[in-house]
């Protein structure tokens, strides 16, 4: 299974991946729904330029962490929905652990500075 690597240079990338995977745990979503839900759930803290979502989604799909399926909606509109795969779920769990460790270390240092 692909293991997340939480280091400083790839922080934003990992953060975006974790956010997307976490939202998809709640069920199938398409790109727009994902961006909206992340924004709403974070009270506007995580705002996506929707365009930047696609490389992340397509990369996760290629790595088989999520699965995209096309659905016809109305006569003209085709929509792509994404769902978390079993590998994606495991990856998300691993991400969560790493984020917790990262956060704990971060707070430890920030806490020392505050004192």
């Amino acid at each position: 299974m692909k293991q997340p690597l939480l280091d400083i240079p790839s922080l934003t990338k990992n953060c975006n991946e974790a956010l997307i995977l976490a939202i998809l745990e709640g069920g199938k979503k398409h790109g727009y729904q994902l961006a909206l839900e992340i924004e709403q759930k974070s009270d506007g803290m995580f705002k996506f330029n929707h365009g930047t979502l696609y490389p992340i989604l397509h990369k996760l799909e290629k790595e088989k962490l999520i699965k995209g399926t096309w659905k016809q909606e109305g006569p003209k509109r085709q929509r792509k929905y994404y769902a978390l795969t079993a590998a994606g779920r495991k990856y998300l769990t691993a991400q969560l652990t790493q984020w917790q460790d990262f956060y704990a270390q971060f707070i430890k240092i920030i806490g020392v500075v505050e004192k």
Partner: protein
Amino acid sequence: MNRFSALLKSIHDQLDVPQPAKSRILLEIAADLEDTYEFYRERGESEENATRLAQEKFILDDLTIAELSSIHQPLLRKWMDRISLNVQSRWERVLLILTLLTIAALSGRVLLSTDFMQNSIFVWPIWGTTIAGAVAFFIKFYKLYLVKDHQAKILRKGIDIVGYLGAFSLALGFTGYFYELLHYGVDTVYPGGSLITVITTVTDSPQRIIDITNCFIGSSTVMLASLFSTLFMALLWYILNNKATAIEMAEAETLLA
């Protein structure tokens, strides 16, 4: 006409991926654009404002375009990119050079044998060109690696000469190949005949069989020598070009640091 067609066309033009993948990306973006538009309309924005706001959310910057292109590139293209100078790791470069050197060493032993060289008069100019290429290589190699003359304006000067000599050698090979066929084939085997006659002829005359064999030995020799020479010079050109690129990249990194 789709209200977002201008934006979609711009994305279409920028994406460097095969058409089926490109179409799917555009379909996906188009559907999300419509949703975003409807979201703003429901919030009471005018059609014009909603279109503008939706478009702003979907502007794909250069980095995003590059990432999308990279994800959807076919495997062959990715493999070709691995060969390109900018992305190769050191061990890949060493492996490539070692492979080419092995080919050159193995085939060079045969191609430089006296018997082989006497098969056609074209072999000599081809070897001459190869030596000229090798000399040009050593001069530039000396400047780049030993003197370390890395001035930007002359950094690549002299590198392409090696490449051009390789191309010239290939051209000599083709010329020599057809010359041998014409000279020995048309003049000796079937005087007044055509190339096709020589190539397709079937004969049981012992002398003609010998003539035809000699004719093909001559033409094949020229072509083999030419291919070897071109490969060898391509390798030399690659080494120099690789070094120049590495110097340029290091300079760019220094500037950006």
